[in-house]
Structure formats: C-alpha cells, structure tokens
C-alpha cells in the first residue's frame, strides 16, 4: 500500500516538476508547482509526518503559490516566454550536462551505498515515538531543544516583512538611471525613454500615492 502511494505520488511529483520547467506560460508553471507540492504533502503523510503534510498544504500551496500568482496577475508579466531562442549559445546543453552529472553522482551514492549511504546512529533522546502524537512531539522539540532557533525565526520573518514593504513601496522621486555608454555601445536600445513614460502612467492616480504614504 505504501509502495503504491509512493509510486503514484512520485509520478505526479516528476510530471509537475517537469511542467514547472517546461511550461511556456508562467501561470501553467505555477499550477504544475501546486500539483508537485501537493504530491509531496502526500509523501510526507506516507512517511508519518502528519504536521508537515498539513503545513505544506497550507503554507506552500495555500500561501506561497497564491502569492506568486497574485504578483503575476498584478504585474501582468504572464506573457509567454519563447523557449526556442537561446540567449546564451550552448547554455542549455551545459546546464543539462551539469544536472545529469550531479544526478548521476547522487544516485550512485544512494544506489551503491544502499542503507549505509545514510550515516549516523539512531536517535535515543529524540526518537520518533509511536505513542505520542506527531504534533505533540514536534511542538515539544520546538519549544525545548530548538527554542532559540524558533526565536531567531521570528526575527527573520519580521525582517522579511519589513524588507518586502520597503522594496515594494512606490518610490516618490524615482529618477531613471541614465544608460551607461558601455551598454549602448553594444547595440542595446536605451531603456530610459520607455521607463519614463511607463512611470508617469503608473503615477497617474495621485490618490494611490497619498494612501501609500499615509500609513508610514
């Protein structure tokens, strides 16, 4: 039974992962990502990590992917990417070669080493106990052995929120950066002109700016 669940979920994970990479449309990539993350949640359940399975569905498929989709819709950058053109010649071949070499190395370690590929002694003090619920056990660990890491995590989240607000804030005096000569010499069209016009268009509604600044 466990094997059957694993096989089905593994197929979904691999198909979803390939879908993320291969899809031309970023929205299709995001939907493939949902399938992958959900299948991984089922694999967590299969491994007996009930809390992580629930957190995976809520945090990843419920929050992160929705956030990515929101940004996509908000900015309208969901236009399809032309996958046929290769910006750097030979880059894809090299990337796939590197990936295959890495995969071969890791799989060789796992398959040749079998059980001995995983070193370390079985835990005595932090063993997974069948009598205590998974949530209870993880909660105890978090608030005893890992309590300082938990505190630092709180700081990290605060910094992330502040950083996101600062980065995504609409700048009041945005000056387009003049294009350096080294770039214009290479035949790239200067980016300053379309920049200025698009910025004026995004600032057309002054009420947005007023409400954004009022909260600070």
């Amino acid at each position, binding site marked *: 039974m*466990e*094997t059957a669940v*694993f096989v089905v979920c593994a197929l979904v*994970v*691999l198909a979803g*992962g*390939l879908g*993320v*990479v291969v899809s031309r449309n*970023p929205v299709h*990539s995001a939907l493939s*990502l949902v399938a992958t*993350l959900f299948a991984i949640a089922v*694999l967590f359940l299969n*491994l007996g*990590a009930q*809390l*992580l399975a629930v957190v995976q569905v809520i*945090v*990843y498929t419920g*929050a*992160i992917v929705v*956030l*990515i989709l929101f*940004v996509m819709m908000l*900015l309208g*950058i969901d*236009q399809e*990417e032309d996958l046929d053109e290769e910006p750097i010649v030979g*880059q894809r071949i090299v*990337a796939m070669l590197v*990936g295959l070499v*890495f*995969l071969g190395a890791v799989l060789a370690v*796992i*398959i040749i080493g*079998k059980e001995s*590929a*995983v070193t*370390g002694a*079985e*835990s005595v003090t*932090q*063993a*997974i106990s069948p009598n205590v619920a998974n949530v209870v056990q993880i909660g105890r*660990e*978090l608030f005893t052995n*890992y309590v300082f890491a938990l505190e630092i*995590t709180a700081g*990290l*989240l605060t910094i*992330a*929120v502040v*950083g*996101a*607000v600062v*980065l*995504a804030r609409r700048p009041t005096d945005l000056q387009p*950066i003049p294009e350096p000569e080294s770039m214009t010499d290479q035949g790239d069209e200067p980016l300053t002109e379309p920049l200025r016009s*698009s910025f004026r268009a995004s600032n057309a509604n002054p009420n947005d700016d007023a409400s954004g600044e009022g909260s600070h």
Partner: protein
Amino acid sequence: MTSNLPLAYLCLAAILFVIGGVGLLIRRNPLVMIMCVELMLNAVNLTFVTFGEMLNDISGQVIVFFVMVVAAAEVVVGLALVVAMSRRRPGANADDLRLLRG
C-alpha cells in the same frame, strides 16, 4: 521491497532537486526561477524527512519546519524584488539585470 522504499524517496528527491536546478539555470523569467528554487527546497525537505524516518529521529521533521519558514521569507523578499524590478523595467527578464542597479 519495503526496506528499499526510503532509498526510493531519496532518489526521487535527488531527481526533483536536479529538475529544479536545471530549470533555475535555463529559464529567464524571474517568477519561474523563484518557483524552481521552491522545487529544490522541497526536494531537500523530502530528503530531511526521509533521513529522519531512516534514523528514527524527530529532528528531521523539526528542521523541515524551519526550512519552510525560511522558504516563505525568501519568497516574500524575492517577489518584492520582482515587483520593484518590473515597476522600473516592465517585461524585464533575468538577462536585463546585468548592472544590478535596478
């Protein structure tokens, strides 16, 4: 067959990690690149839980909890960067950011 199942989990996680890594290298859309990073983080999470299962250790699951928090923070900052970037240069991809000056 049942005894080999944890090894199959490890192999699956390795394949998923490589898929994410190759996608990160060959795609140019910053949002798709963020999604590929998520794939790699999830592959590592799967490996952690499998190790915890093989060694009968709860720490594997606790660490996955922290990885998830870090991933959430990373996505928030990354998406804010994407928003700031596409406000200045609409339709820009990763190749247009050579100067690191917005």
